């Protein structure tokens, strides 16, 4: 889960990682409270999308009047389809040097990867493409951790200003601790800067591994502050794995791979999926009702394709859920169902014994996709 800059910085605070003093503004009235920042300050839009500076979402204010002016302008602003609901007001730093640092998991090496570069403050992918030698990449064995010697060598090899070596080594070590102990998928600092007040992490791009939620008390609150579409919210409450997409064929399936594949097959027949919805293994009748309920909240859905291959999931229970959820209801859309695998015969019998003119049974995945796309037009 990708975090807002201010959330990443609150994790910096927790791990003693130096960063500028700041103040979070949720609504314009927040600026009437007293806050202890020295001007000039930077006014930064909090959005989960890149390129906010170019879009006018970052401004330098020299006094309270300018701060009010920019805050008014940026709050509520639309940046690439994201509405700015919060701004971070931060003391401007006197930047002497700008570096780049990130920690992530290299899936093919199955090790952690540290990337460090003296070319901070710019698009790191461009640096990697054009001047790969300017990017120091170091693999860290997760079973061993990060040695201080390795950090110092990386600082040397990346041609960072060696006068700040001890401070740099310390902040890098603390950022690594945040990455590992904080169960982050990504910690990226661009720029990691040498400023008039020492070495600091000026920006934050942090992504959390939500599988580790059970061992972090703060993940729940962080998650609540991240906006998600109403349908995704309902799905989360119901324990379903749901992602809103741009098309109009509602998809329900069991197993991530099969659902992904269902989206592809729908596209192959000229349609486009409205969502990804995985009811998971071992789904019961209630799960299926909940899934249909989630799709009902999405106005862009105009037909539904339920694709089930029973393994742990039993097709009869899925069919039972469909019957219960649709009985006596005036369905908004046509539902096409394909059942295979464990107890498919029993499931199909349940559907045939409870006919509903809006529900169509398909023999194969392809036929179902074709019908769902047709019913969509």
């Amino acid at each position, binding site marked *: 889960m990708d975090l807002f800059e201010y959330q990443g910085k609150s994790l910096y605070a927790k791990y003693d990682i130096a960063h500028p003093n700041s103040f979070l503004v949720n609504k314009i009235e927040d600026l009437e409270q007293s806050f202890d920042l020295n001007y000039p300050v930077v006014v930064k839009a909090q959005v989960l999308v890149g390129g906010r500076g170019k879009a006018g979402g970052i401004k330098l204010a020299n006094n309270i009047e300018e701060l009010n002016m920019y805050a008014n302008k940026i709050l509520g602003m639309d940046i690439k389809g994201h509405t700015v609901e919060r701004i971070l007001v931060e003391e401007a730093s006197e930047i002497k040097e700008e570096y780049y640092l990130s920690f992530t998991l290299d*899936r093919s090496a*199955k090790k952690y990867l540290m990337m460090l570069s003296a070319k901070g403050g710019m698009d790191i992918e461009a640096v990697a493409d054009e001047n790969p030698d300017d990017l120091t990449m170091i693999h860290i064995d997760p079973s061993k951790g990060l040695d201080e010697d390795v950090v110092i060598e990386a600082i040397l090899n990346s041609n960072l200003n060696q006068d700040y070596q001890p401070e740099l080594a310390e902040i890098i070590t603390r950022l690594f601790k945040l990455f590992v102990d904080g169960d982050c998928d990504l910690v990226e600092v661009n720029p990691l800067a040498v400023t008039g007040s020492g070495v600091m992490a000026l920006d934050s791009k942090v992504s959390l*591994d939500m599988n580790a939620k059970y061992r972090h008390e703060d993940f729940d609150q962080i998650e609540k502050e991240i906006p998600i579409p109403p349908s995704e919210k309902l799905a989360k409450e119901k324990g379903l794995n749901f992602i809103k997409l741009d098309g109009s064929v509602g998809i329900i399936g069991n*197993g991530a*791979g*099969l659902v992904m594949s269902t989206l592809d097959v729908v596209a192959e027949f000229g349609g486009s999926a409205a969502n990804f919805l995985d009811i998971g293994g071992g789904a019961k009748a209630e799960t299926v009702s909940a899934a249909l309920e989630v799709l009902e909240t999405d106005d862009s859905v105009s037909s539904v394709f339920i694709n089930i291959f*029973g*393994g742990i999931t039993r097709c009869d229970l899925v069919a039972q859920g469909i019957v219960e959820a649709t009985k006596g209801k005036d369905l908004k859309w046509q539902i096409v169902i394909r059942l*295979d695998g464990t107890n498919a015969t029993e499931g199909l019998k349940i559907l045939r014994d409870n006919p509903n003119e809006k529900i169509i049974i398909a023999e194969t995945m392809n036929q179902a996709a074709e019908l769902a796309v047709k019913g969509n037009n």
Partner: protein
Amino acid sequence: MAILIDEDSRVVVQGITGREGRFHALRNRDYGTKIVAGTRPGKGGEEVESIPIFNTVKEAIDETGANVALTFVPPAFAREAVLEAAYADCQLIVCITEGIPAKDEAEMYNLIKNNTKSKLLGPNCPGLISPGKSNVGIMPHEITLPGGVGVISRSGTLTYQAVHELTQLDIGQSTCIGIGGDPVPGMSFIDVLKDFQEDDETNAIVMIGEIGGTAEEEAAEYIKDNITKPVVSYIAGVTAPPGKKMGHAGAIVSGNKGTAKAKMEALEEANVLVVSNPTKIGKAVKEVM
């Protein structure tokens, strides 16, 4: 022959007293799998339908000669359970558990690799089945048929779909393996491809991939140089939008990396027959065999 498991495999089920552990232990035993033991700390000496329970994997191995561990332990305890089985010298550990933090997976993978000889399949996988011989996992064996096609996949239900397509056309399988959908799987496509290449009974391979990471690209490189048997492949997620985790923690397109298109192209370059839809797998196998 089959790969990794056969009729002689002796399985200890970790977490046998849990709902899933018990259900699948009994189901696999009914299929003919030698489920010789279970573990649950504190319940040593008890039994589940006459399967003896031990406190530790070490005791289970010493008493029953188990050589394969099947793990259903919840995410918070899975790392310790898998490491326990590895340090007790289990040859193969099959970890079904879904939802293990990536950090725990990365640590356990490297600890096992650095310090033991064990092979780890999963986590977050459906396990494996050698049809007619042994089922170590949660795959519905009803849809399988003994034969000569090796199946490898990152997804559970897509494996079932592929196996179903094969069986419908009377094409049997030597071993069907789900390597799991997480960012740090134990055995990779390459590890399994190597075993299938060496297995006399396997004469064609079906490989099912999905978006995210570069495992399919690496497999394509490997196939080009090392695999002489015909390979059919399907990649899920052609239409997946970038930056979203599509159900599996590992299924995410980051920037322009991990796309289905790149994977399909790499495989085609390695002379793999890539199909656009999982229902075409059966016919494609018939074509290459």
